[in-house]
């Protein structure tokens, strides 16, 4: 058997499973919104790692799969609400991509409970905190996404 190229999910004392959540966010709305969460000192769980993009339109659907393959147990994709896109239409194109992508994932049998899409504006600091907590709790309940991570080693002699 080959080694899966994934990193171990961080374990807290008591070694209860702590999920690793990757968030793909746009710079102008959700990243700023998450900044606001900080300036408003709203607490949320530390499991999320944010990756900043100029726009949700920039987010290649493959990156979401890469996140899973490389050890993320859950993924958040978030950007500006429709009509608020800094680039006017990037989020509309992203939305189309996501609509079909989710369909395709579900058709191939991938567990969509691990993939969450949201619109979080620069003003929605509280919403960001709620989103992260909700996703973290849900994914913690689902357990590690070994199923996908293990694919990298399945079929290697």
């Amino acid at each position, binding site marked *: *058997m*080959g*080694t899966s*190229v*994934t*990193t171990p999910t961080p374990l807290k004392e008591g070694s209860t499973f702590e999920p690793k959540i990757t968030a793909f966010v746009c710079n102008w709305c959700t990243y700023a919104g998450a900044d606001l969460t900080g300036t408003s000192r709203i607490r949320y769980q530390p499991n999320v790692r944010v990756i900043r993009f100029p726009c949700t339109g920039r987010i290649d659907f493959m990156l979401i799969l890469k996140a899973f393959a*490389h050890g993320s147990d859950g993924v958040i994709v978030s950007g500006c609400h429709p009509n608020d896109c800094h680039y006017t239409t990037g989020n509309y194109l992203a939305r189309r991509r996501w609509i079909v992508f989710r369909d395709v994932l579900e058709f191939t049998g991938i567990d969509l409970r691990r993939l969450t899409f949201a619109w979080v504006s620069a003003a929605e600091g509280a919403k960001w905190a709620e989103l992260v907590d909700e996703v973290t709790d849900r994914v913690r309940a689902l357990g590690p996404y070994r199923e996908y991570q293990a694919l*990298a080693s399945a*079929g*290697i*002699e």
Partner: protein
Amino acid sequence: MSPEYQIGEGSLEALFAAITADGRRIWGPRAAAGCIEIGEIRSAGELARDQVHPISSAKAAAFPRVEKILSYRMDGKDVAIDDPPLPARPTVLFGLRPCEARGFCALGTILNWGTPDRFFNARMERTTVVSIACTRSDEACFCTAVGGGPDHPAGSDLLLHPLAQGGYDVVVLSDKGRALVALAPDRFEPARGAARIALAKIEAEFQAQEITEQLPRLFDHPIWSEQSLRCLGCGACAYVCPTCACFDIQDEADARRGVRLRCWDSCAFRLFTLHASGHNPRETQGQRWRQRVQHKFSYMPERLGVLGCVGCGKCSRACPVDMDFKEHLTEIAKFS
């Protein structure tokens, strides 16, 4: 070669059980969605025997389509490499056609050309090949044109001849074969010369020698682009071929660790010879097709003293656009 034993239809199941009990896995033709492929089989009932050939190749037993050759970890700023243990799973390939079994000779020769291929050899040592002589053939077959035949012994450890009454005559061809018999000695009765089903008749429409002689002068001939016009440039032919041995080395890694894999590759792909500069010494499909034929019928005989083709016709059967190898070779052989 006279058979030492015969085995009854009814005893196959017990033989399979004995093999499994010995901790070996059994691979053979089995029905899979939409076709007959080579795969793991747990009981004689699963063994498919009516087809001329399974679509996929048995070479995967010793030359897997993806094989880990090492893995490494980032240890702070240093790299720690772990060599994987040599592959150890003993395998019995059951029910191959003699031509495909014969393919292992060519495959072994090329993989051991220069440096011995310890991965392949380790697997081969643990692999026992049981082939069944052909009583049927189809228009893709041309084993007799390349020095083989429906009951050719090369590459097999045991060769089975179907009997009219059911069951098989068993020809032992190697110690590995003998060892297999020893797993269930009471299931192998001494051969009694029972009537065999007649072997398939495969007319040789050309002789490999003719092609080997033709090729040097045909190198720049338009025949290659002619024949390959409909070729789509996929790798189906190479991936089902018992003797195609080309592979690619791939590292799969992140910032912390990685694995190095050996994966099947094919000379039919444009990417196969594409240089980093963007230059491609085999730019056209015609050149790539020529390489395939030249390699099997000229370079291998010349450098390794062995033909790169066993005439199984698997490539023709797998090709989505019916690139018929026999037809094309015949054309080349008869070309003047």
